[in-house]
């Protein structure tokens, strides 16, 4: 995209773009789409901004006290101008609204990016993130290893306060909340280490709550999983209970295995009813037509 090219060029010229975590340097289709949407909206907005920056100096010069402009103290309305100043914003809002609608629906974070995504369960904890790999049977703290070019589905919940999870170079934010499960789908098309972090203030260790997202080639990822499996450490309920107390983890921790269904148990600590017996309840007002149709079995396991 030429627009991206221009912004990229601009970005390269300004100090700071070497930063490890910005959607200005997307490393996957989601962040890339968000970046180009940013560009499209900015460009469209120039339609109302440029005229102001051009016209205001002219008007100020011409109609300054002692300027050449004719003094017409009672002039207060003109239908033609009125149509223009209402019409252009309305048309612009229509265009922007359409772009927004299309982009929002297309890039719903819950929409899977392909068949057989790699599922990673994310538990936000005080000042660290726990990643569970049900497929591989391994778990990590503050290290999210991902294979290149394979769709990833992150399922997020929180073992503590609300947090906001982001890997800027791959995808935008989503909140992680206790007793609830949110989803974030992404895909990495470049290998490398990308920073991810929590952006929602959650206490003393907030500033340091970041993690490394390590994108590897599929083979390297498989090798990583095998090597991690060989780790002696295992994460069980007691180990998880220890993680619940607030702490800052400076080096990633790897677990060779974890208690299956741990994610569901974390959810169930806060929402037993949601896991066991939801569905009987109906919204009191107004009547809810879809109630009970959306079981999410893994939450109950």
């Amino acid at each position: 995209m030429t627009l991206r090219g221009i912004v990229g060029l601009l970005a390269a010229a300004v100090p700071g773009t070497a930063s490890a975590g910005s959607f200005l340097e997307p490393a996957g289709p989601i962040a890339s789409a968000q970046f180009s949407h940013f560009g499209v909206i900015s460009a469209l907005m120039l339609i109302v901004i440029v005229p102001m920056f051009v016209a205001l100096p002219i008007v100020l010069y011409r109609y300054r006290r002692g300027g050449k402009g004719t003094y017409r103290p009672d002039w207060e309305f003109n239908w033609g101008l009125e149509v223009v100043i209402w019409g252009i914003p309305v048309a612009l809002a229509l265009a922007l609204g359409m772009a927004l609608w299309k982009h929002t629906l297309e890039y719903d974070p819950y929409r899977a990016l392909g068949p057989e995504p790699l599922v990673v369960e994310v538990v936000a904890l005080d000042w660290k993130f726990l990643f569970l790999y049900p497929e591989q049977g391994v778990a990590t703290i503050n290290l999210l290893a991902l294979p290149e070019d394979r769709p990833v589905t992150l399922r997020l919940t929180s073992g503590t306060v609300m947090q906001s999870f982001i890997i800027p170079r791959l995808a935008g934010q989503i909140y992680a909340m206790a007793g609830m499960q949110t989803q974030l789908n992404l895909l990495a098309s470049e290998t490398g280490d990308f920073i991810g972090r929590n952006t929602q203030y959650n206490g003393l260790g907030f500033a340091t709550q970041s993690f490394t997202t390590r994108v590897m080639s599929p083979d390297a990822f498989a090798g990583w999983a095998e090597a991690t499996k060989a780790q002696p450490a295992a994460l069980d309920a007691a180990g998880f209970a220890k993680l619940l107390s607030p702490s800052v983890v400076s080096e990633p921790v790897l677990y060779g295995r974890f208690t299956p269904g741990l994610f569901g148990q974390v959810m169930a600590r806060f929402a037993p009813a949601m896991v066991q017996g939801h569905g009987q309840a109906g919204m009191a007002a107004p009547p809810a037509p879809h109630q009970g149709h959306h079981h999410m079995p893994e939450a109950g396991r």
Partner: protein
Amino acid sequence: MSLSERLHPGLNLAGTDPEGHEAAEEVLFGFWIFLMSDLVLFAVLFATYAAMSVQGIAGGPRPAEVFDLTAAFLETMLLLLSSFAFGFAMLEMKYRENRRRVLSWLLVTGVLGAAFVGMELHDYYVMITAHAAPPQASGFLSAYYLLTGTHALHVSSGLVWMAIMAVQVMVIGFSTPVKLRLMRLALFWHMLDVVWIGIFTFVYLFGVVS
């Protein structure tokens, strides 16, 4: 006839006390705005309750298990009759300014209102003791107690206000400010009745049906 054509909410004094009617214009409009703001507060509590009564059960009791419809029906009747009685107090004030009769109607209103609050407190007592359903038990119960409790608190403050107005009627008599205060109390009282319609329908009846 512009005075009697332009009517504000509630009983108007146009026919009997034009001066009072003129003074009422600003004061009642202000109070009416206050009521609308209060209504928004209730609306937010209703919306919270609607969500919490589904999401916030948390393994605790469900609405249908803890609500007593007979009590709700009796409470509705008490509040409705007290609203009606207040209407008659206002008519006495408007047409006759008869202290004794206004005070008797206010007494009827107050007794019915107090009975309503008493019954609600009894409901709470039963829920907490017999159903183990205190507000701390679940989000649903928190929302229930806050919604009905806010209403009960409004009714109770209405009762205190009514007592003060009874004293003012005795001490000051039907001066314009006293009349206007009674008119505002009447608006307040009727509006609480309207809110209660929402409560008995969306809390009690909906809770038992669904």
